[in-house]
């Protein structure tokens, strides 16, 4: 679903809460003309705040600065959101934690309802102090709040933390990990692994900069790719 918002205008409309101290390291300038595929503007802004609570900016970009919102948008608009690898047949009785995901909803629906339910909890997320967002996240992870609708706090939290993490560290072809932010942070060289000569070089740091699946030789920043 093409919502017609540009990323930069949506996300940077948030102001100081999201941008934080100093300029974001990885901007969305190249994507300004590309609208979101699934998220509405409100959803995207809420999501940015939630993701940045999970992965805030420090010496390395925050989640939204690294493109996690873009990543999640594309995942929810695609096969993952549709539940292409999910057995969705009913009935859907509730199970034990050991029995895993039992929701009748494909992820796209679960996210939509979950994000909407966030708004009912502490009011609009924008403008909330970070401490309130941190508390919200803690409550979600402990399944504490009574969320409106059919989505449990814990199940939404599980999705949120999983996709935020994936968006920060997956190959940049999926829209996140902009400029290899996540890979630079930990020191992961990426998709081209040839370590025959160095595997038993004990304790030698390997400083090869990352190269992803779509890497253009000579470029270290992936943000020019759509």
């Amino acid at each position: 679903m093409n919502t017609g918002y540009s990323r930069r205008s949506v996300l940077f409309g948030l102001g100081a809460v999201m941008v934080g101290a100093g300029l974001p390291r990885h901007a969305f300038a190249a994507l300004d003309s590309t609208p979101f595929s699934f998220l509405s503007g409100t959803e995207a802004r809420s999501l940015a705040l939630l993701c940045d609570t999970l992965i805030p900016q420090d010496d390395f970009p925050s989640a939204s600065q690294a493109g996690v919102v873009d990543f999640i948008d594309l995942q929810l608009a695609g096969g993952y959101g549709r539940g292409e690898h999910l057995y969705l047949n009913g009935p859907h009785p509730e199970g034990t934690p050991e029995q895993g995901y039992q929701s009748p909803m494909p992820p796209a629906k679960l996210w939509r309802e979950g994000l909407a339910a966030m708004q009912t909890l502490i009011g609009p997320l924008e403008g909330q102090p970070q401490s309130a967002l941190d508390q919200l996240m803690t409550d979600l992870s402990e399944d504490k709040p009574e969320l409106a609708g059919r989505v449990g706090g814990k199940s939404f939290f599980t999705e949120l933390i999983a996709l935020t993490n994936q968006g920060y560290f997956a190959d940049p072809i999926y829209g996140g990990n902009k400029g290899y932010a996540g890979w630079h942070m930990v020191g992961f060289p990426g998709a081209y692994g040839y370590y025959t000569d160095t595997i038993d070089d004990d304790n030698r740091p390997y400083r090869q900069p990352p190269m992803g699946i779509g890497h253009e030789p000579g470029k270290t920043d992936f943000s020019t790719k759509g």
Partner: protein
Amino acid sequence: MNTRHRLLICFALAAFLPGHVTGQAIPVDQSYDTARDLFNMTVDTPPDPAMLARGQAIATHGAGDVQSCITCHSVGGQGDGSGSFPRLTGQPAWYLDKQLDDYTSGARPDDLMTTVAQSLSEDDRAAVSAYYASLAAPLRVARGQLPVNEIQKGAAIARAGSPEKGLPACTNCHGPDGTGNPPSVPYLAGQYANYMVLQLDRWRRGKRGNDFGGMMSAIARKMTPEDMRAISEYYERVANPLTTKDPE
């Protein structure tokens, strides 16, 4: 194995990309000879000036009895298309240094290069490797009619190997579009087809065996001469921004 792979280049990381180094002190094992250091990453980062100067001097004027590198590898380091003198510009310094080591020890026998390498000291070999790694030179355009079918066939093998022949794809190891995977793996993009055909043939016949585990010999033995020609013609024409620059 480790001790033979020596010094390289110390490129400043700070200019490279913000965020990579800050926030994480990368420790170095103090027992290492600090001259054995890192890999070269791209030619865009500023290298150690003194070493480069030394390398340039050797390359241009030779050292002792040894003729200068430019005699055969051309003034810019781009070699020629004959097959004997490969392009050196922008190859990973670690890789170039290892080849010079292997020429010296006999692990990579060669009529010409063995004497050359043996006449250079360890430090000289390192310096000249560093120098060539830092260069870019104009691409030599292949002459004659474009062998389109060969190039297509070569491209297919390069990217997708060959199930029929049990051939893995070249991109597995040789980097994005064959532009190399430092430190160990040289680029193929922009290298001369005749040189690559010659090397593949040497791998195949067992005349070259200085890679680990016999990987390239195993691969070359699965290729026919037509395969070798096809892959080499393809890669010669792949643009490699790391190692080429426009002619002035």
